[in-house]
């Protein structure tokens, strides 16, 4: 470099290969390989289920991965339960539109306590197994770099994303436009929501989360408010 002599060096091919592990929605970066759901089940039960549950349903360590998607969703590419108040949690498969995201992330970061220890083939296998639990692919399936683009077409929420908003770029158009009224702005002030009683002390005693001197104390939330 003539502008900044002496700084930085060429990356070697092997170095780039070692670190450039991302996989994009167009599958750029996806390594060749494959894995069966049978092998996937082994991996899942051996290395994933303890945190995510046997069926990917566990809420113990993180929100569930599997659940809330239907055969109908696979057809439409829109997860219907996302508009239902009944579905208590949004699972991973209810949200994710791109199968590449899951391949990339599992390979990059899972198992959580031993990231980057899954082989490429095992990543295909376990991802295939997760998809099979959600009945996106058959019970007996071999996911590979060859057929993953076809699987993409089955993702239940593949049509569920919009980028039609003004919030990706600084110059984007905000979607609400409030005005700065200064006087007599509301006839009746109504309180829509207050802190539930059980939440008063749910973050432990606020008296101990404020300075013991100064303009204010912390309220003693182990007791009811002062009379």
């Amino acid at each position, binding site marked *: 470099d003539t502008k900044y002599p002496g*700084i930085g060096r060429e990356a070697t091919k092997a170095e780039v290969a070692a670190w450039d592990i991302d996989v994009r929605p167009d599958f750029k970066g996806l390594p060749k390989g494959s894995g069966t759901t049978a092998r996937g089940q082994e991996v899942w039960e051996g290395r994933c289920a303890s945190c995510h549950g046997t069926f990917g349903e566990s809420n113990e360590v993180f929100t569930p991965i599997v659940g809330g998607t239907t055969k109908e969703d696979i057809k439409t590419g829109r997860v219907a339960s996302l508009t239902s108040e009944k579905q208590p949690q949004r699972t991973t498969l209810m949200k994710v539109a791109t199968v590449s995201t899951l391949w990339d992330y599992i390979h990059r*970061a899972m198992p959580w306590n031993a990231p980057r220890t899954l082989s490429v083939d095992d990543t295909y296998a376990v991802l295939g197994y997760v998809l099979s639990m959600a009945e996106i692919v058959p019970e007996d399936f071999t996911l590979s770099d060859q057929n993953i683009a076809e699987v993409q077409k089955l993702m239940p929420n593949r049509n569920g994303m919009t980028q039609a908003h003004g*919030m990706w770029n600084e110059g984007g158009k905000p979607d609400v436009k409030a005005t700065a009224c200064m006087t007599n*702005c509301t006839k009746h002030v109504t309180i829509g929501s207050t802190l539930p009683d059980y939440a008063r002390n749910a973050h432990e005693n606020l008296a101990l*989360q404020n300075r013991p001197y100064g303009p204010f104390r912390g309220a003693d939330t182990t007791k009811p408010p002062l009379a």
Partner: protein
Amino acid sequence: ALGATATGAAIAAEGEKVILEKQQWQTTLGQPVAARPYGMPSQWEAALQRRESPGLTRVPAASVAFSPLQGFFGIITPNGLHFERHHQGWYDIDPAQHRLMVNGLVRQEKVFTMDDLMRLPSVSRIHFIECGANTGLEWGNVAVPSVQYTHGMLSCCEFTGVPLSVLLDMCGADLKKGKYILAEGGDGSGMTRTIPMDNALKDVLVVWGMNGEMLRPENGYPLRLLVPGVQGVSSVKWLRRIEVGDMPYATKDEAVHYIDLLPSGLHRQYTTVQECKSVITTPSGGQQLLDKGFYNISGMAWSGRGKIKHVDISVDGGNNWRRARLETPVLSKAITRFNMDWVWDGSPAILMSRATDETGYVQPMVKQLREVRGTRSIYHNNSIQAWKLDVNGELSNVQVG
């Protein structure tokens, strides 16, 4: 009844003992210099700590520790109290072992050591970092009792580093095809985020310095990205790689999280700008006033779209507003501290602040946001915060309207 206090208590006719009697610190020799070669806060400041919100996450290494904004002053976040958000825990990486790689659509893929990076032309700038999920707990209803938990995923520091544009220039980035960059972290989560190239060239920094010293391990030591004005997750910590590409990457934290569920069932993807927002930090939820009389209402305002133009304060639930004083400096994509005189007469009050930024955007009521985005958005809740002051002097978290 209002809380009793030392100050409020009657003073004996001659005066207070702490004045009339000589105190230990006036009559003995104190501690030497450099007793603590690296200093710590007073023993009396133990209440000000980073804290988790119980029940919010299930495992503390994929969690949040909130900053005690209720005790902060000014705009600078003390490094010891910067909020934490990790996806796979934090590391104290040896800087001699750390590398930054630039690859993808560049003329020359490169590797930089910390030795290299810190020789480059550096800049220092004060910016806020706000997690996209800050105040997310309150999209539906009031859920948490104090500003530490409503707004405590917020910081503002002076960052020092090299503009990303310098690195892209050194590597000969293809600015025609390369419309996006991917930033990747060196931790177990290998956090990855897409940043539009325009943005990357404008004001994004690769930083090592934070408030005069190196980044803290919890905040990405020895290297992080700093994407001003954009949700914190994009300011990738323990930064190890920058890739130049021609499309967004839809990484896990762009395709499964940090997406906003609309009432239609669609999710907004790649919502990153932190819109104009403010909050009164003192007095605030869970604080207890000891007496009627004069108070300084104080808080923070910030905008991902530039400078704060003004902040208005209401003490009657939003019916009438008065303009607050802004402290200097007022900087782009940085916190601005505001203050306002107030005499509390002992009657109930509802305190709210409303910021306007230099684009003219006015911080909205939560109702307005819900009209467009519904109640299940999690991220980007920049609505006006209200604190209800009761006759007993206690403030609590409420939503107005």
